[in-house]
């Protein structure tokens, strides 16, 4: 770990409103995550894990408090700036893979690169590199429906890392997978953290998955309960 906090949350709060009724989801979150960290976000259903992850990833806005991620105060960015920031700094991995069904694995992985000024050849090199990383070189021309769940999630991981973002966010990445495939994805993420120094924040229910992280953050009813280091 390099030590510098890449994620810095101060008194972060988020409420939803149903008509005039305020529903607090997150309250007074203070959290520092150093660059190169691998954190598992845990807690009971409805405790606000996804909400917190979305705030960190810049796809949702807090009701109060400050958040600095990858050197940017996200509150100060407008929607388009935030979009540009996400494309530069954040890779997303979802529980349901969320690949585009009408695009091949190759084209799915290429998507984030379409937002960069890269030429076709450079994009191809990057995609191939990412596909090698997830060990799916022989599946590049397949469509998502021609892949197994585990393979789909590996394509999704390739898509998340292809533009070389500093931060990876994953919301229950193994939630839809069987134990063997889950183990494979966990090994992949661990490698990305260890070899490439990616900072990873992962929401998970699965204690086995959480065990792959270096730290576990526990949320309870929208409040940070405790952070523990994982002993290995």
């Amino acid at each position: 770990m390099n030590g510098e906090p890449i994620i810095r949350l101060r008194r972060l709060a988020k409420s939803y409103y149903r008509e005039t009724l305020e529903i607090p989801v997150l309250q007074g979150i203070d959290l520092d995550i150093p660059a190169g960290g691998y954190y598992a976000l845990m807690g009971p259903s409805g405790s606000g894990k996804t909400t917190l992850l979305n705030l960190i990833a810049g796809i949702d806005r807090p009701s109060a408090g400050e958040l600095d991620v990858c050197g940017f105060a996200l509150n100060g960015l407008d929607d388009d700036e935030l979009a540009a920031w996400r494309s530069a700094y954040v890779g997303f991995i979802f529980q349901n893979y969320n690949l585009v069904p009408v695009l091949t694995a190759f084209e799915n992985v290429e998507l984030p690169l379409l937002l960069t000024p890269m030429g076709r050849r450079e994009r191809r090199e990057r995609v191939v590199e990412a596909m090698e990383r997830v060990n799916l070189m022989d599946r590049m021309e397949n469509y998502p429906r021609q892949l197994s769940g585990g393979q789909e999630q590996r394509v999704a991981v390739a898509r998340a890392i292809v533009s070389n973002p500093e931060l990876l966010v994953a919301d229950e990445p193994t939630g839809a997978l069987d134990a063997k495939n889950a183990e494979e994805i966990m090994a992949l993420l661990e490698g990305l953290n260890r070899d490439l120094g990616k900072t990873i924040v992962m929401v998970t229910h699965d204690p086995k998955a959480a065990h792959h992280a270096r730290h576990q953050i526990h949320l309870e009813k929208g409040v940070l309960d405790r952070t523990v280091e994982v002993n290995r």
Partner: protein
Amino acid sequence: MKFLHLILRSFFRSKRRTVLTILSITVSVALIAILQSVLATLDGFANNPDASNRIVVRHKVSITNMLPMRYEDWIRQQPEVEAVMGLQWFQGVYIDRRNFFPNFASEAEYVTAIFKEEIVDYSDAQYRDFLRDRNGCIVGKALADKFGWKIGDVISLQSEIFPITVRLTVRCIFRSKRPADEMGLHFNYKLLEEGVFYMKGRTGNFFVRVRHPDDVPKLIERIDRHFRDAVEPTFSETENAFQLEFLKMMGNYTTIIQMITGAVLVAILIVTANTMAMAIRERTIEISVFRAMGFRTGQILLLLMGEGVLLSILGGVFGLGLAWAMAGAIRNVAGTFLPYLQNFTIDFGTMALCFQATLGVGVLSTFIPAYRATRRPIVDGLRSL
């Protein structure tokens, strides 16, 4: 441009829906293009540049009242006038009503002088034969070809206005610049005067040829002023205005055609809007994923609108192609009922207009669901399972 690929892939996501939508746009656009071309063709009759120095004089009361033939003597004396001719719409039926073509009882000796632009090419010998034969007629080449008439053939026309049938001998066949101008028949006015007692010395119209188009307005004014206090006052107008009035007797077709066009455009709007709304709704999560990855609002709009525009471009092109393919058939079939449609074409201006309207509808119908998709919070979209 790298987005074009994405647009195309999404475009064929649901092939059947895409094809059906394109088909319905195709049919609608073809309908609009044909209707608008009918309008343009009819308007062409009322904007005939060849008629710019012709005046039509009729009875002030209505198009069906008759004027004394002697009025033409005074008109002929006006210095601006090159030629005057009495002409009566005869509405003769040749064998069957469906064989409709315009036919007139005209003062034979002036026909070529008045219709110089239409009766362009003919043999002097044939024309002399026509003048000599009281039962003769002069017909356009296209008309003669249509019924296989040759010089010397006898044809009979039963009028729907007058209680007579005339038996005419084809004496002269003329050629025009446009085939549509070759569909007329003129026969000797004297035949009508002799056959119908109340037409003696009377005619429905005078066609007046003015030496210079600039003189048309003041001559119109002078003719009507001169006959203002006569028992049978006149109403004069340009031939184009007269044609328009004649066309209007078929009903206010402009309004009807524009109303149908409007209704069809609305139908296209609804079909496209529905298809795009469905296409966008079922992709809520995907759109949110794109946005999470960093696609900006404008880029998402571009991707989604691209599909709607593509739908309307394809529907528009196919529709215009269909209309174009049908133009010949319309000319042949509708032209026999409605002689005005004998030179029916789908001109470039009409095509451009229809295409623009279709494109406009495509943009409009996609913009609303696309814009809504970009307004929706990303996290909502991701949660919508």
